[in-house]
């Protein structure tokens, strides 16, 4: 007869199917391990490539630093150093030769007495100097004489010369000068302030409206300006010239 008895405890699901699941689990685990190894190897190769590139960049940087040091050594040689100093000196002179038209007009306005008015001013650059031509109007000669005296005493101007004088009769028609006024035209050499004015040139829109720009004898361009003292200047970079 056959017996079917057994007092042993039935195996659990884990015990029963552990072996059956072992093979696919092992295969999956091996596949994951292979994938991880492949990924790791790829990352290592990429890291090595980056290290090589980084080393090349470092070498180039070292070369550039070395080149910079060589240039600095060359730059510190006496002949080049003297050339630099000369260049700086000349650049300083150029800065000193800069003329602020607004400052010029303000200086002229300071010379005017109350009864005289500036009807024209022009600037002519010639050589290393600047010649300024004034046209001043007044109803009486006395204010013009005061202006000329002030101009002669002004440290900013030198060698004032009266080039013309005129008296205009009263007319009904409109003219450049007011009716019954004395007009004096004079020139002077602008020596400027001793400290130099680092002001740039005035834009064309701020020039005087009553007189067209003229050229000097050396071909430089004259810079007429209006009589209005509010004629402003525009500095490159937006900085006010008066701040200098």
């Amino acid at each position, binding site marked *: *007869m056959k*017996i079917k*008895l057994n*007092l*042993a*405890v039935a195996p659990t699901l884990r015990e029963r199917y552990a072996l059956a699941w072992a093979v696919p689990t092992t295969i999956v685990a091996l596949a994951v391990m292979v994938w991880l190894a492949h990924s790791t190897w790829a990352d290592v190769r990429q890291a090595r490539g980056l290290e090589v590139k980084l080393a090349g960049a470092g070498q180039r940087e070292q070369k550039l630093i070395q080149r910079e040091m060589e240039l600095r050594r060359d730059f510190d040689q006496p002949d080049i150093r003297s050339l630099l100093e000369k260049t700086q000196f000349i650049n300083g002179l150029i800065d000193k030769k800069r003329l602020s038209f607004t400052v010029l007009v303000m200086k002229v306005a300071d010379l005017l007495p109350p009864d005289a008015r500036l009807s024209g001013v022009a600037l002519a650059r010639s050589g290393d100097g600047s010649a300024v031509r004034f046209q001043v109007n007044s109803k009486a000669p006395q204010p013009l004489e005061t202006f000329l005296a002030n101009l002669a005493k002004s440290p900013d101007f030198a060698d004032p010369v009266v080039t013309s004088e005129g008296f205009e009769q009263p007319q009904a028609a409109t003219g450049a000068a007011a009716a019954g006024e004395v007009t004096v035209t004079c020139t002077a050499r602008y020596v400027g302030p001793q400290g130099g004015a680092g002001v740039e040139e005035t834009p064309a829109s701020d020039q005087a409206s009553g007189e067209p720009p003229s050229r000097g004898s050396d071909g430089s361009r004259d810079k007429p300006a209006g009589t209005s003292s509010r004629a402003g200047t525009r500095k490159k970079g937006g900085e006010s010239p008066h701040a200098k």
Partner: protein
Amino acid sequence: MTGRPATGACRAAAESDSMNWNLLKGRVASLAALTTAAFELPSTVIEVQPDFVVAARLDVAHRQVRRMEMAELAPGALNPHPGRANVANEPALRRALGNVTRAVGDGSGRSGLLVSDGTIRAAVLSFDTVPDDASEFASLVRWRMKEHLPFAPEDARLSYQVSRSAGSSCEVLAIAAANSVLGEYEAAHKGVTGGLILPSTAALLPLLPIESTGQLLVNVCCGWVTTVVVEQSRVCSWRTREIIETAPKALADAVATEAARAAASARDHLKVDVRQVWLCGRPTVGLELAAEVGRAIGGAPRVLKPAGELASTLPAAERAAFERFGAPLAGLLANVD
């Protein structure tokens, strides 16, 4: 005012749920621990009897015994009983088990275990109606086995098989053992779990031929005698008792008396006429024992021996051990389809 009672109620509900969950887990675990497996024959089988320990490595596919080893167990090291601790000298049992298992090898790591008949309780139960649900039937069998068990039925590992089925009624051969008792054997030898655990007499049953007349199997081993009446493939009765007599003559008389009582009971109560008596005694069946049993039942008993071809590949010493102790092993191999 309403917050605290609500919180307390929630906490109480949570504790109640937790307790229920733990209780449920405990029940599931206990059920899993007591759910027995179907019959299977591992490649390594160990038999533990009060006087000896046997281990054998089997080739189940070819129905061969590949290795066989026997070791004597110190007297008093094992005291089979269904309701109390069996292992009295665990180091000696472990040592004997270690010796025999090392000799035969562990095989696949799962082992079968044959225990003394005194360790289990067996009964033939009749049912007029059988529930359709298997779990309900198992519960019913467990409930019916309660009167045969000297321990709580909740602690019993139960296994049964239907011997006869007629209409809605059936007859069941059930065996049960205390989980704690079998746990001692399993603890003494790791690897038994998940294999096979049987009393040695159950392993002898496949050796009996299927005959229409009644047969009586008398198994005498290490102070215990079991008588089983079989008719065709039906186990009609199972009775196990301890024999305190140790002298050969007294032992033979006691076994003969028990065999005669079983045969008479089968004839009177079960209406089964025993025509053939099979006698299995280990280590050996003495002439005196066979003569006494034959005289008691009125016919010469046949000694149940393992077939020699099962041990054809064994060395001479192991073959001799197999012939003396290997009858249950031969029965297990005969039970494999």
